[in-house]
């Protein structure tokens, strides 16, 4: 109930194959959430073409754990932009 969308930003991607990049994202999320299934349920987007990272619905404490994983630059809550 307390989960919110967080963006996990990992900078430039280190693998050319986007499927490999996405698989890495799922593995990382699963390592914190406890299962692959939970990771698939929680994942909103995998950023795999122009850079590496993902968006997922996680709690604050889960976000903190993800932030400590190697390769993670920053975990930030998603927020809104508006038209100008």
């Amino acid at each position, binding site marked *: 109930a307390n989960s*919110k969308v967080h*963006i996990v930003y990992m*900078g430039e991607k280190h693998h050319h194959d986007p499927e490999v990049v996405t698989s890495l994202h799922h593995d990382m999320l699963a390592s914190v959430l406890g299962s692959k299934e939970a990771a698939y349920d929680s994942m909103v987007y995998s950023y795999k*073409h122009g850079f590496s990272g993902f968006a997922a619905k996680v709690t604050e404490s889960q976000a903190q754990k993800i932030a400590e994983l190697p390769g993670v630059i920053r975990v930030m809550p998603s927020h*809104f932009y508006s038209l*100008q």
Partner: protein
Amino acid sequence: TTRSWDYLGLSPSSPTNLLHDTNLGDGIVIGLLDTGIWPESKVFNDEGLGPIPNQWKGQCVSGESFNASADCNKKLIGAKWYIDGFLAENKQPFNTTDSPDFLSPRDVFGHGTHTSTIAGGSFVYNASYRGLGLGSVRGGAPRARLAMYKVCWNVPRGQCSSADILKAFDDAIHDGVDVISVSLGTQLPLFSEVDDRDTISIGSFHAVAKGIPVVCGAANEGPSAYTVENTAPWILTVAATTIDRSFPTPITLGNNLTILGQAIFAGKEVGFTGLVYPENPGLIPSLAGVCESLLLNNTPVAGNVVLCFTTVASRTPVATAVSSVRAAGGVGVIVAKSPGDVLGPCSNEFPCIEVDYELGTQILFYIRSTRSPTVKLSPSATLVGKPISTKVATFSSRGPNSIAPAILKPDIAAPGVSILAGSSPYDSFMDGGFALHSGTSMATPHVSGIVALLKALHSNWSPAAIRSALVTTAWKTDPFGEPIFAEGSPQKVANPFDYGGGLVNPNKAADPGLIYDMGTEDYIKYLCAVGYNTSAISQLVGQTTACSMVKPSVLDVNLPSITIPNLRENITLTRSVTNVGPVNSVYKANIDPPPGISVAVRPETLVFNSTIKTISFTVAVSTTHQVNTGYYFGSLTWTDGEHLVTSPISVRTQIIQYYTDGN
């Protein structure tokens, strides 16, 4: 756009200009992150367009009321929609009954259709809003292809989740767009570029690193200082100006004096009728004639035109006054206000005409001096050309840059007031497929269209080179040589914090002579200079990076502008320029120093030949001021007699540093 492109010198009837030199931008793909697109709009016709460019790897995605195979064509070659982040953040389901929208690339707002038209719409002749602004609508690059990434949804003001925006950037980079146009903003105060929540600067960093320029709006929080958004140095940030077009609307008083207000009023003339200004009798202290809180109890409104006053520049008081006056049976409203540069029609052709405070006071004096004041309201006309001056719009956000004051923002200004372009039938301001809208949202795709043309002409130019070409060649006056003013209270002559390098001059930008180029190394230098740690920078750029032992100066970032926010001791900064003009060229420096500031350039002459294409130079700056000052402005121009490569200089003396002067 029925005027804006001609105003900027990109008329198709001109025998030579950037438009012709680039075959109208053919082969270039413009990606827009916006509210979607109305594909049936005439501006997206693909008549005469050749095959889809080879580099295109994107796709059109079907969805609600959007059939990819039928709705996309050789003009609209990409259309995707991103809602997962938006839905995941909304606790309630997105109810498209209450907030009409389509779960597809289809646009309800009209905003994305409008911006797409401005950047790369095809020609549509005889377009107007109810006869106003009549002409040919088209994009800056009329033969460019469009890719819409719908990231904004129909909740108040249009909300766009940063998770969705980042995915759209990710896809746009993959799809092979040549320029990304983002008419979105966030709330102040800002988040920093890489270690917080500024999704647009993160996505744009990776786009720019791959050679894709990203053009963003400066936001609509002006005219206060420090309101500019999208300030990362790799982003091209756009302010909004007016154009040489207005919509004068005659207000004829009973004494035969005719005052020209401004309105989008295409209804029938209101013949001579009563004119009233709400005033309270006796000692009641509240003002009855304030537009946003009209007190009409003591005023005979039915059948009359009401004059009101407001100090608020936005459209809100106009809408509020119209609602109150209509409810009381009035037949028109005259609003005396500071210019807000956001005109719009009032519903059901109700006349709502804006005048400035000076003319409003004249009307008030007429009312107070006459037993039975009367007025006639005539429909708006379209006035184009020299009598109309160019102004930086009131709403356009202003510098300095609150994150990194040494990085001048906005970079450039472009038309963004009362722009006629395609829209959605759901847009309440749309007529016959077109609507007049204002905002830095409209200025942004003007620059995106020009960037598309420049990419077509100079395919090897980096995003920084394109930005440099635009900034150093921009008009400091309007196209007729008259000064550009900045709206606000009071109005003043515009400076770099209003319009960056100035008003975009596409034909000059095509041949700038010299460019201040930047690549990933320069952005790393910036990140080191502003204090990001090396591990974060290494990951950001995907390579091991170490900031130098001596922290680089942000003043040395190779921007086409010089901004010194805290000058106390003498400062020497460096720049390098690359010759993109004739191989054998000699440029000399011409300095216009800010008042009280000494500026010296070494060397004063730059000699380029077949082996020397890039030359570094230093700029020594010192102050004679002995107190903390505000910003003074000047310029540095390199010229070979043909090209003028002008960098704006902004300097603030800070004898006491990190000091708020609130005395």
